[in-house]
């Protein structure tokens, strides 16, 4: 007799009929009072993510939000799906377990620069390299907010904070390059201050099959309000943001006057008209390349010399960990039949005592 072959006890019928109607953002709101600081970028991110969830056609019970510790990690409490508020840095590991238990689920990790790139870097990079079908949203405000204002691993060199009164003496870690080095199959960056771009980027991540990593640039109103001034200011957005479009020449600035070329392996900003640049000389974005070289070059662009690249750096297809795991089990069952427990216990040399 094989317990695996027995029917499970009946599950109760669904108490809602999510599958039968179009969901809206409201369906993904909880009635919990949101406890982020007034004006925090997290609100904008929450709204856009809820909108994306409503558009995916997945019922609420099929979604799981997993987080670690930090301001961003309160996120699961505000999304009316299943949620797991874990421990510091470990959300990708917990999420990997959830996904392996039930690969049908849409599993999300919400993390921050401290949670994901300091205490939890190990889990993050391994989750990405395994290509577990999990969507990782990393809110990068370049500061420790919940612990009240210490520098974070993404804080810029020389930053003055509560724990670095004489300025930091550490180079920051670069989230996009870290994800690329970890062989993530989807790597993108967006910014809280551009809700449309945020929505489109998160949606692209959600529709990607495999590990998706999205860095969301965000300020901390209390401890690092000017973190991304150069990018957030709408007046200078055309000059300061480089919007990546797969297959398109890389251009930015008013009317797309500016472009990017590579000389001696170095990116160079050119004025397309003034410098007499031919369109075919401009770098063309290719998010589908197996090589991460171009993506990495674009991710390195930083103000004041360069605009900040936003959009999808990389989106390639590779088999997912959870798919391969399921496939190995399917093949084992095909080859040996569904596990027969009695036969397993009786395997090897056995003897009878009468």
């Amino acid at each position: 007799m094989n317990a695996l072959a027995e029917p499970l006890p009946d599950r109760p019928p669904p108490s809602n009929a999510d599958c039968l109607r179009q969901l809206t953002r409201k369906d993904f709101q909880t009635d919990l009072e949101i406890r982020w600081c007034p004006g925090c970028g997290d609100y904008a991110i929450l709204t856009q993510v809820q909108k994306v969830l409503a558009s995916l056609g997945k019922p609420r019970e099929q979604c799981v939000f997993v987080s670690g510790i930090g301001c961003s990690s309160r996120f699961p409490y505000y999304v009316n799906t299943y949620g797991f508020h874990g421990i510091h840095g470990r959300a990708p590991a917990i999420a990997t377990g959830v996904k392996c238990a039930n690969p049908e689920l849409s599993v999300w990790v919400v993390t921050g620069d401290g949670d994901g790139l300091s205490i939890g870097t190990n889990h993050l990079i391994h989750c990405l390299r395994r290509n577990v079908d999990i969507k990782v949203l990393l809110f990068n405000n370049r500061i420790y907010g919940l612990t009240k204002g210490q520098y974070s691993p993404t804080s810029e060199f020389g930053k003055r904070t509560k724990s670095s009164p004489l300025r930091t003496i550490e180079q920051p870690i670069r989230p996009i390059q870290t994800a690329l080095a970890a062989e993530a199959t989807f790597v993108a960056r967006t910014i809280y201050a551009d809700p449309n771009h945020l929505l489109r980027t998160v949606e692209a991540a959600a529709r990607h099959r495999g590990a998706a990593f999205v860095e969301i640039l965000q300020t901390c109103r209390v401890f690092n309000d000017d973190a991304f001034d150069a990018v957030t200011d709408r007046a200078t957005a055309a000059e300061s943001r480089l919007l990546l479009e797969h297959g398109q020449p890389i251009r930015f600035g008013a009317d797309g006057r500016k472009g990017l070329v590579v000389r001696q392996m170095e990116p160079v900003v050119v004025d397309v008209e003034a410098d007499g640049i031919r369109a075919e000389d401009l770098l063309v974005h290719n998010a589908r390349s197996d090589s991460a070289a171009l993506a990495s070059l674009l991710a390195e662009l930083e103000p004041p010399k360069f605009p900040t690249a936003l959009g999808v750096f990389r989106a390639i297809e590779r088999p997912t960990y959870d798919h391969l795991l399921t496939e190995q089990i399917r093949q084992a069952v095909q080859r040996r039949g569904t596990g027969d427990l009695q036969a397993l216990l009786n395997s090897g040399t056995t003897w009878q005592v009468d």
Partner: protein
Amino acid sequence: MESCCSSAGRPVVELPQSTVRFAGDSGDGMQLVGSQFADLASLSGCAIRTIPDFPSEIRAPAGSLAGVSGYQLSFGGEEITTPGDSPFVLVAMNPAALKVNLSELQPGGVVVANADEFTKGNLTKARYEANPLEDGSLAGYRVLPVPMTRMTDEATRASGLPGSARARCKNFFALGMMAWLYDQPMQPLLEWLMRKFRKSPPVMAANAASLRAGYNYANTAELFRVQYAVAPAHLPKGRYRRVTGNEAVALGLIAAAARLGRPLVYASYPITPASDILHELSGHKEFDVRVIQCEDEIAACCAALGASFGGAMGATGTSGPGLALKTEALGLAVMTELPLVVVNVQRAGPSTGMPTKTEQADLNMALYGRHGEAPLVVLAAASPADGFAIAFEAVRLATRYMTPVLVLSDSFLANSAEAFSIPDVSALPDLRVAPPVPEPGAFAAYRRDPQTLARPWAAPGTAGFEHRIGGLEKQDGSGVVTYDSANHRRMVELRAQKVAGIAADIPPAAVEGAATGDLLVVGWGSSYGAIVGAVRQARDEGYRVSHLHLRHLHPLPRGVGEVLHSFRRVLVPENNLGQLNALLRSQFLIETVAFPKVEGRPFLIREIRNAIEETIRA
């Protein structure tokens, strides 16, 4: 006792039990022939208990002292509960094997040495100045030098294998000799060789020839004056197989998950001596066992916990240093009240310590090693085969009570093997858990079952039960985050009560032996066999001594206090400095005597027997 005659016409000496150690270079195949001899003894009706002794180096130089690999087994009647205090026969395949193992041989014991390997070079590597087979230094033993390498070479020539491959068959020559010495049939070994090497007939033929040659040599060369007939055991009826502790734990997890009707997700980071559980489970995917080799120990614990949240049976395994790294996730498991099984195969610590050597010094960490008030269930396997029952019990308690369960094994149990009475699978308890019940209003993730105090297990994918859990304190019932002080107190107490209440769901303390007496020996974990043997001897010698062995360490079974107080003295042998001893003293306010052994090796029967005598006489 001598009685004529064996099948070979030789006088036969009957023995109640015997202990043999095979020792050689790590490439000599000692583990293989040792385990085959164990199966042979089992087939003849003996109880067995085995213990390997691996070199800690992966590839130590051939012939060196560091490269000696050994396999010891004790076999005989049902009183076999340990691999034996000291071998009666030592098979030494080279000088280093002799040097490393001789001191443990019984006085008057038998040394069967491969004389061909006692060359000048090998003697130097083993730091012998003269050949011990010739210089009279082994006068206290019966020494049988046998040219095994040469005779194996001759016997295997017909196989057509190259010389180096044939030389590797000499372990079967040694096995053949032992089979003759203990009057065992060769047929089961020949059949096993046919199965094992069915894809390479020349290798099969060479090993079979070597085996026969060893058997025939022992018979015709008249090395041995007698043969030995070891008494069979009177084991309960049923089908048996040999399992190590690690195998038994893996099989127990698979069986329990099957009876739970959920996939097993085993997330682990390789660590000695727990890795064999990972290996074993990786090979059984047809049981829907999902194995994740994680990036580190806490990731493994978190992934297992995430899997349980996801509706599977999450389990992880490790050894002491790894358990330290998992600790934060164990606190999360206590707080989220999810099922989780953590197997800790203890080794000699602290820190890297002696990673291949055994110890029972993680009891305190298992019981107390978390921040906050974080009670969980702690179980300990008493013998290798008990690993199956303990793993099954761990899954039962974890899922019935929605709690993490820590299973303690150790390096000794992990690698030691004994006969496992194969259970009838249909008779194993049904562990299926009732699905959560829909209720009006929002789902209350911490509404407890009034009897077990367990909260419902509502897995993602189940509509109507969407909820958020995590490490923050929860409102009793609703599970909503709250810092309310009265609620925190209530929740701390509820978590403790839930685990304490499990005492009503496990067997009460059961004494082996009389209910009162001069001395009670209390043990836990792998010391079981040595205590059983020691208590039996002491009782035979007239001492009024009984044994209480704890498989549940938290909560303790009901009635432990009454049992302790029914004896004049209490002796607590442990492979640590007295951790259970301190627990018993503090919890039951009773005088006890600790008997610690922290040498990286399990207790011998005689060590505990002597401690029994001393404690009673004190």
